[in-house]
């Protein structure tokens, strides 16, 4: 993935966040994706989210696998380490890194090929482990880098550019996540920055794995009539159901127990996710209700979007492992090696 530096005079905002950084400080190299690619909009939303949350860029670790989506780490937070690993295996690498250093913000960027075909197993187990990370699936229903084959998220009846129709049922990461215990499940659309930015912010605050499926049309191979992952189709069928808003801990929460339709969930650091525009009977805290709602709507051809499900009480990997609070990478060798005396004593067990 060639990286092209951006011109110095790029006209981005000069407004500074709490740690004195501008949006520009969260950018990366120039994107080499196709013009109009949904992934670039997601990158922009990520940049804004990180900036708004005032996260130190070098405290971010950008993880990815292989594919168009996995190029994304190059395009944001150039002050952060990134790891473009192997196809479908980002979750394992991210899990290992998170085990070693729990102090960083892990952002995994994957695609529907990377996560739902070759990497389905790894994604599922990272969800089960509840590794603390933002896990973005840039979902376009198609393999871009190898020029337009169906992916596992292609809907039944969806057509390839050349006319081929998909007959197999799709793997829906939102349903999958909900069924295997995901603690944070969202779906959004790359074209809806208003919705996406708050979701990403809440995801970055979540203590556990935040699964964010973003429909991100592929302008080159899957944006035609007959595709169910095109801009047109998504705009037409997208139905925001659980608009989330992240209120930082410092701000006063005006409606903690809000009027009908407003649900709030307090995050681990004290910030609050406030839901609005929640339909009657929908509860983002109730897994069964969410599953039923989604099933009914998707059968009708509606794509519900928003922060669909959130449970902040599920223990994350480190809590389950009872790992020490200090990141393991910072624990000094002296605390790790029991020394000659202990070995001498232990040897008596082998006599």
């Amino acid at each position, binding site marked *: *993935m*060639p*990286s092209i530096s951006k011109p110095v005079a790029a006209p981005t905002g000069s407004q500074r966040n709490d740690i004195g950084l501008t949006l520009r400080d969260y950018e990366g190299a120039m994107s080499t994706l196709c013009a109009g690619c949904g992934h670039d909009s997601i990158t922009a939303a990520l940049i804004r989210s990180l900036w708004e949350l005032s996260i*130190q*860029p*070098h*405290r971010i*670790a950008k*993880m990815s696998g292989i594919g168009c989506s996995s190029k994304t780490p*190059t395009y944001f937070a*150039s*002050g*952060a*380490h*990134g*790891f*473009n*690993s*192997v196809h479908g*295996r980002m*979750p*394992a*690498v*991210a*899990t*290992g*890194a*998170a*085990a*070693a*250093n729990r*102090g*960083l913000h892990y952002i995994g960027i994957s695609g529907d090929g990377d996560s739902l075909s070759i990497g389905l*197993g*790894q994604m*599922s*187990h990272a969800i089960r*482990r509840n590794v603390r990370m933002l896990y973005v699936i840039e979902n376009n229903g198609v393999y871009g880098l190898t020029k337009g084959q169906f992916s596992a998220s292609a809907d039944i009846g969806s057509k390839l550019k050349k006319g081929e129709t998909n007959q197999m049922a799709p793997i829906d990461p939102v349903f999958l996540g909900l069924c295997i215990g995901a603690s944070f499940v969202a779906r959004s659309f790359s074209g809806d920055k208003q919705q996406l930015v708050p979701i990403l912010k809440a995801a970055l605050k979540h203590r556990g794995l935040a699964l964010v499926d973003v429909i991100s049309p592929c302008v080159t191979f899957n944006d035609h009539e007959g595709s169910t992952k095109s801009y047109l189709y998504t705009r037409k069928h997208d139905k925001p159901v659980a608009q989330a808003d992240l209120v930082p801990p410092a701000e006063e929460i005006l409606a903690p127990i809000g009027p009908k339709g407003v649900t709030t969930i307090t995050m681990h650091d004290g910030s609050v996710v406030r839901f609005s525009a929640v339909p009657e009977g929908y509860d983002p805290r109730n897994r069964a209700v969410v599953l039923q709602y989604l099933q009914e709507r998707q059968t009708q051809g509606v794509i519900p979007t928003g922060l669909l499900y959130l449970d902040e009480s599920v223990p994350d990997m*480190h809590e389950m*492992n*009872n*790992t*020490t*609070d200090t990141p*393991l*990478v910072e*624990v000094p*060798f002296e*605390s*790790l*090696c*029991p*020394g*000659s005396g*202990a*070995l*001498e004593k232990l*040897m008596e067990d*082998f*006599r």
Partner: protein
Amino acid sequence: MPEAHSRVNDFAFKLANVNGTGSASANGLLMQAIFRMGIPVSGKNLFPSNIQGLPTWYEIRVNKDGRTARALDYDLIVAMNAQTYARDVEEVRSGGYLLFDSTWPLDKSLLRPDVVFLGVPFAQLCVENFKEPRERILMKNIAYAGSLIALLDIEMSVVEELLQETFGKKKALLESNHKALKLGYDFARQNFELLPFRLQRMDANGDKILIDGNTATALGALYAGCTVAAWYPITPATSVMESFKSLCERYRKDPKTGKNNFAILQAEDELAAIGMVIGASWAGVRAFTSTAGPGVSLMNEFLGLAYYAEIPAVLVDVQRVGPSTGMPTRTQQADLLSCAYASHGDTKHILLFPANPAECFELAVASFDLAERFQTPVILMSDLDIGMNDWVVPRLTWNDSYKPERGRVLSAEQIEKLGHFHRYADEDEYFVTPRTLPGVSPKGAYLTRGSGHNRLGGYTELPEEYQAVVDRLAQKHRAAAQFVPAPVIDVSRSSRGKGKRGAPFSFVTLGGCDAAVREALDLLAEQGILGDYMRIRGFPFGAEVEEFLNAHDVNYIIEQNRDHQLKSLIILETGIPKSKLESLLYYGGFPMSAGLVVEGYLSAIGKQDGAGARGLGGIHEALSGAEG
């Protein structure tokens, strides 16, 4: 039998059991008692890939001179498994003994005139003395141990002590064991004379220990300061991680908070396991995984990433018999080539070859140092024999002045001083470039990638930029030859009396073949055939390895695989002429024996008729049918 004819501390016996019946504890008890009597001993557990009902054997060899490689001849066989009775009778050395359960009448066709049959009604004794059906089965094992204590002169006080340590507060169990032991012991004492071979306390074990290689490997990882381990269960590597876990529970709890200074992740498969290790090492900790051949096959893609992106990783391969599922509970050294060049493209890894549990400990620590110094995967090549059998080895010791070799990792201050950080530039004399860890400094940030990259760390598809990096990787791998453990060389046999170094031929081996090959050279020396010895301990091969091979007209490369993988690796990676290299191979799945090496060698030089001899291939054929 008259005392004068008795052979002291030099014999082998074999216990034939049904697995899942509790024989392992009886056999372990015998082994440990002999060890505590100060006698050099080895125990080889030849077990099936099964939980209950299939044949399993345990072989014990005692030898006052310390020759404890697996024996081929058995002075005594304890035949407790009707399924294998016929072949167990066959394996008794002429003039030897067979101890059997005489509760049932013996099939007359199995009798051998040159073998003494000793019948003890173990089942009957246990039925008469124990109530519970399960106890009756379990205690049969302790009863035969009792008979052996009588027949072989094992010190009862040592056995009592062991039982006390094992059962301590569990009074009922202790009592049952005592009772069963006495049943077997008394019967043997009352009905049989002493055997012409027996045990007698000596002081050969000093303060040595009895330990298996997987436990020792785990101890090495603990002492090296490894904090993240990821794994997927697989025979025979599982106990590496089980040991590591219990050691961490014991030594790695934060004293103040009770929280874990470690994270052990049971992965969904071996791909994920090595991926986690790579992620953790990239983030800056020492991390490792353990597996066997099938796991290594799955890890190939990731190993190539770690090699190319230059990320440390420690992988313990406890080798078993392949290909495919192969024989999971049998031993082999057949992953050499698949590990040396694991992954697609031009890849080469650092391999270390421990010969016993003591070296598992030592080389496990070295693996972490090498992996971090050279920023690359290091594979510790253990095997089932080393990993799962108990070995008598020198007590493990630790030098408190040890400092982990973390390699070229830049601190925030060092990064700050740099104008620009470039991941693959500024190589040192060993072709290693500095790396930075995530989270340390914005100036140290870079994108790690398995795609084509130049020395700056940027993406490239330019031939010269690509080649510059992979050429340096080859140089780096060669440089590692100076750092892997030196070979163990022994030229004492050929130089004996002549004051001159070097024999015309040598035996070259690796890993757990060590004891068998050295014993074979001793046996040949007794016939006036003097050969030199080298045991290779690391790949890439250092200068000493090449010098030794060049100094001999013929080097017999002795290894446990069909395709002479070590020989191939030597041919591929050194300038040694092929004409100087011959192979002696045994790959049937059991540990190596000196007898096989001697007969293989004599057959190779034409001193023994290959067809009739029990050569390396021959014994394999003979033994392979024993698999249950």
